[in-house]
């Protein structure tokens, strides 16, 4: 099952089977392992959903005819997700990946109805016997690009094109800013909330607004490459999101945080095949290969390059934690004590900003 055409046909085949439940296959030892995915965006977003689909393709490459994958894209977070999950479950999939935070409740709900099917929910915190969660420590990557921004910014200001103030995004902003501040103690990070994950024109306008306000480093937590294009047009630097976005902004693109889910997907599928799959929570970072950095642009100075490499290595080795105390929020309350570092509990509930962030 290596050709694209074969894969596509099987993808459609799975969808057809779900509309004709009478043809639905029972799991048997001979038949390939059915693996379903639901994505919040289009796989053509070249961002977050695309990276999950790369993970799905990696599964097909690794296991060939032993697996049969299918996916549903553009699934709205909410009741639609339950319908999509049920459809994949009824189509005979034995392992289903729900790849966005907002799929959490539907996943738990559908998992109860299909106790024999295993579910994996990305970036959530609710688990069950047959629901595991997995997440990536994107903030580690943000600490690396923050280091580069601190070294390269002339105005000492970064613009952050953000989606929604959920802990995942807030910790990214703090991690980026703290790393930049280590290099330049006066560094400022301005945030514009777009209230959407995906609206290219609005993301571009947000980037332009930030550039107008003096930012010469643009980073983002939305899904399109539009902010990079705006940076390229205005002659400032920017960082890609979720995948290497250099093609969109050859001059502006300094590096990118690259999500890589394939290692985890391959491992978990193996466990289902071997019957050793168990529920659990995995939060992998640079060390585990979940988070990678895209190759640096030639414009990145040797000094910034060296510092970024050091931060990457130290995080991977566990000698550096991006959230090391003492950390105070903007009201002056100590959130992480001196010498300690933020626990996963603190990170997963983060709703405060450190000094120097305008959010």
């Amino acid at each position, binding site marked *: 099952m290596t050709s694209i055409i074969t894969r596509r046909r099987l993808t459609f085949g799975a969808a057809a089977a779900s509309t004709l439940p009478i043809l639905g296959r029972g799991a048997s030892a001979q038949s390939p392992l059915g693996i379903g995915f639901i994505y919040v965006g289009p796989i053509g977003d070249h961002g977050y959903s695309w990276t999950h689909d790369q993970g799905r393709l990696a599964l097909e490459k690794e296991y060939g005819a032993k697996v049969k994958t299918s996916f549903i894209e553009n699934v709205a977070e909410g009741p639609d997700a339950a319908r999509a999950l049920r459809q994949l479950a009824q189509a005979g999939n034995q392992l289903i990946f729900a790849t966005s935070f907002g799929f959490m409740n539907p996943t738990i709900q559908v998992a109860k109805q299909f106790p024999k099917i295993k579910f994996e929910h990305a970036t959530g915190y609710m688990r069950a016997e047959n629901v595991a969660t997995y997440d990536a420590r994107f903030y580690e990557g943000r600490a690396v690009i923050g280091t580069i921004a601190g070294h390269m910014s002339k105005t000492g200001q970064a613009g952050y094109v953000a989606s929604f103030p959920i802990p995942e995004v807030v910790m990214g902003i703090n991690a980026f800013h703290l790393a930049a501040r280590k290099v330049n103690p006066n560094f400022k990070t301005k945030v514009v909330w777009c209230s959407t994950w995906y*609206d290219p024109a609005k993301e*571009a306008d947000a980037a*332009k607004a930030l550039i*107008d*306000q003096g930012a010469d480093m643009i980073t983002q937590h939305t899904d399109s490459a539009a902010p990079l294009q705006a940076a390229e*047009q205005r002659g400032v630097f920017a960082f890609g999101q979720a995948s290497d976005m250099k093609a969109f902004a050859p001059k502006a693109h300094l590096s990118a945080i690259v999500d890589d889910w394939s290692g985890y997907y391959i491992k978990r599928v193996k466990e289902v095949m071997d019957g050793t799959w168990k529920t659990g929570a995995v939060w992998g970072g640079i060390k585990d290969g979940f988070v990678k950095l895209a190759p640096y642009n030639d414009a990145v100075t040797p000094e910034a390059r060296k510092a970024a490499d050091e931060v990457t290595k130290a995080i991977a080795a566990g000698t550096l934690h991006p959230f090391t105390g003492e950390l105070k929020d903007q009201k002056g309350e100590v959130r992480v004590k001196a010498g300690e570092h933020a626990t996963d509990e603190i990170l997963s509930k983060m709703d405060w900003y450190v000094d120097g962030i305008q959010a």
Partner: protein
Amino acid sequence: MTSAMAVSILMTLIAASTPLLLASLGELVAEKAGVLNLGVEGMMLCGAVAGFAIAFSSGSTTLGLVAAILAGIAASMIFAVLALSLGANQVATGLALTIFGIGASSLIGAGFVGRTVERLGPIFPAALSEHPVLRVVFGQDILVYLSLVLVVGVGYFLRRTRAGLILRAVGENDASAHAIGYPVLAIRYAAVAFGGALAGLGGAYFSLALTPMWADRLTAGRGWIALALVVFSAWKPGRLLLGAYLFGAVMTLELQAKAAGIGWIAPEFLAMAPYLATIAVLTMMSLGRRTGRLDAPACLGKPFSAS
């Protein structure tokens, strides 16, 4: 605020308003002829993907724009055949066209994801188009000027020309227009095609000028705002221009206010503002006229058959 910043904000504002103006102006003409085409978003996406695909393949942005116009017209003709010739419900057909446009553009665009083309540039020489202040006037791309010329042109056409009068007659009273010998369906086809052409251009403004790339659902719902603008304008091109720039201004200033850290006005309020304005304008209009139909063409959305 420095003048450089003001200029930059104005540039962003104009760029944000232009696709809205193009798409809504086309829809205005179609509605003036009595056709309610809710497929604007779908036609915009068809134009966006066709424009990008041809510009990318041929290396010529001009060819891309031509392709966008043709794709918009082609999409609008699907609607025209179903809703005009076959008398299908216009609301349902228009919605179907939008859903079709989302799917078709995604299919066509699949091979172009992750590519980029050269941005549609200013038409005046660099001395003018890169002047720190004058670039507001001279630094725009061709579609900005075209959209403004079209506002004047459409206004003149509808108000001052015989052809415009006939188009309005078809929209106000199709049976009478038919009785005195005007080809109602042919005129409506032409109006729908014009709407499709401008929606296609409006879509291409995203894929060739604002964010020169193809990504699924690139227009992110602007087609619906364009539809609302037509009602907001009370079917008058001049007021449509005002409305489109008002929406563009609010969309831009919302982000600028956030970036500037202006705390006294909640950004959420700015995000609501254009819609509040729409409701206010509609309310004022219906209070003033007491007709209860807000100046809408009388035959808007009604099927016509010559029998």
